[in-house]
């Protein structure tokens, strides 16, 4: 469902050109569980941003569900992000002035879904992440693990095809980290394609497929047998 062909992303830093991604070819199947690992500066975050259509490649093609995204404008990319892609971040990125319920509702508000349908979907997402009793809480009233679960609920409420997680446990203690990992693995078992960027090898090895990057190139791509 995801195919990258000779995809490069260059950044200009001063007079130097940095190849964050250097002619990467990659194919990811539906419902796969992929970890992307590498030291900082290896290009793993850039890869995730491009997969999430937050960033555009300098050259090469990114084909998502058979659609070439290279020629899309901002609005078209926003549309794809809205319906096909879910994001989870290391720092959760909840909107502090909104309740858990409203945060989860946000993607549906942006796509203009009516309030009744929104309310139903938010409640079922809250149930999936086990936070039904926290729906009126503001992020500051929630623990780190709970915040990340709200973020997960938000990422799946539009029923996307792909869930992109950027160091999802990076800001969490081991216990709540494990809960979060379990939760997203359950979502993967239920049919969601899961792509996790991490530098935690233990977490990386839980996935079905581990991709290692260095200097913008894939240096290792191993699949669990």
């Amino acid at each position: 469902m995801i195919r990258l062909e000779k995809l490069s992303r260059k950044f200009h830093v001063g007079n130097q050109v940095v190849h964050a991604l250097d002619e990467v070819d990659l194919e990811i199947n539906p419902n796969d569980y992929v970890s992307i690992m590498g030291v900082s500066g290896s290009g793993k975050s850039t890869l995730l941003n491009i997969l999430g259509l937050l960033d555009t490649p300098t050259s090469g093609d990114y084909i998502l569900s058979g659609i070439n995204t290279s020629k899309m404008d901002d609005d078209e990319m926003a549309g794809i992000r809205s319906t096909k892609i879910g994001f989870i971040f290391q720092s959760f990125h909840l909107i502090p002035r909104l309740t858990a319920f409203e945060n989860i509702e946000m993607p549906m508000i942006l796509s203009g879904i009516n309030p009744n349908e929104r309310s139903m979907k938010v409640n079922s997402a809250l149930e999936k992440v086990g936070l039904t009793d926290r729906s009126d809480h503001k992020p500051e009233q929630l623990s780190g693990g709970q915040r990340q679960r709200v973020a997960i609920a938000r990422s799946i409420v539009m029923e996307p095809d792909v869930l992109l997680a950027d160091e999802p446990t990076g800001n969490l203690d081991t216990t709540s980290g494990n809960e979060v990992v379990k939760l997203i693995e359950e979502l993967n078992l239920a049919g969601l394609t899961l792509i996790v960027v991490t530098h935690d090898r233990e977490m990386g090895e839980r996935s079905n497929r581990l991709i290692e990057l260095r200097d913008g190139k894939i240096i290792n791509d191993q699949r669990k047998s």
Partner: protein
Amino acid sequence: MRLSDILFLAYTTLIRYPLRTIMLLIATSIGVMAVILLTAVGEGARDYITGEFRNLGTNLLIVIPGRNETSGGGGPIDLAGLSPRPLTIEDAQSLSQIDNIRRIAPVVIGEAPAQYDGLERSASIIGTTPEFLSIRQWEMESGSFLPGASMRYSPPVCAIGKEIKSELFGDAVAVGEWIRIGDRRCRVAGVIAEEGRAIGIDVQKTVVIPVALGTALFNRDSLFRIIVDVRTTSRMDQTKQSILSIIKRRHQGKEDITVIKQDTVLQSFDNIFNVLTMALGSIASISLLVAGILIMNVMLVAVSQRQAEIGLLKAIGAKNKQINNLFVVEAIMLSGSGAIMGLILGHSITQVLKVAFPDFNFLPPMWASYVSLIVALISGIIFGLLPARRAAKLDPVEALSGNK
């Protein structure tokens, strides 16, 4: 994205930063309040002045010698004699043939010393007919005004202003006494109660004498003007034409007089004060502009403060336009609620002022409320646009990581 959701989201930002919101509300409301108050004063002044004029009656036509379009200050400079043909007492008499004319008061004015019992002072002299009293709606303090007689002949009788009376007679009774005006003698018939001004002359320092006596006193055959009181105001223009044609016939076919309506004078004052009010309003609007710039400044800060949030919204599918709208609506809500607060404040303060100064009528014009509200909203849109565009154009990756 639904409008109700946009409004809700903008609202949450406003209550999230209460201090910021309150400061901006105050800034905008001061601007709107200034517009309301200043225009209320301007409009009040207009009402006061035109009210004063309206007291003189809108049913008056004034005939002045000379074919000049400008009514000028009407001061003693264009006093007769200089016009090609004098406007005479006979001219005034001839106007009585017009149906629609109720009263005719020919006027001649000048200065002359008034003497009584060795005391002398200079007085403004108005030579006119008894009708002048009712046209001007003067009251008498004691005695009577000029006696009813023909314009051509009249007994030597005068009515004097209050100041003349007290200076020449002190506390003694003036009515019935003979005073000397210039080289003429006349009997005081009454004292005028009026304290204001008429035809630019302080009534209290005036001696009113019959018009024929006046022309004789100043040795002049032209009148200063003729004041005409019209019966039916709707036929004013027609009456004006009749006056013009009668005098023209009398002046060998030359149209050498000007007839002005009290209305015209009133109208020019009205215009002057309208312009004044608008000028005051525009000056006050500058403070609205300042408030708008303040809003822009704060919104720009908000955009950089909320970078991560903007990045997140983009990540979960917000289009650039939606981000733009969120920020513009936030700015409009700030300026709009500030404007409404300013309207309430402005109108309440006007009410208080009305109670404090009952003589002066504070009238905030309707347009001031509308205009200030609209200007505030437009400045919200305009000054919200730049920050909103900046927010919409943020690169999502950079915004999410919080880097500039």
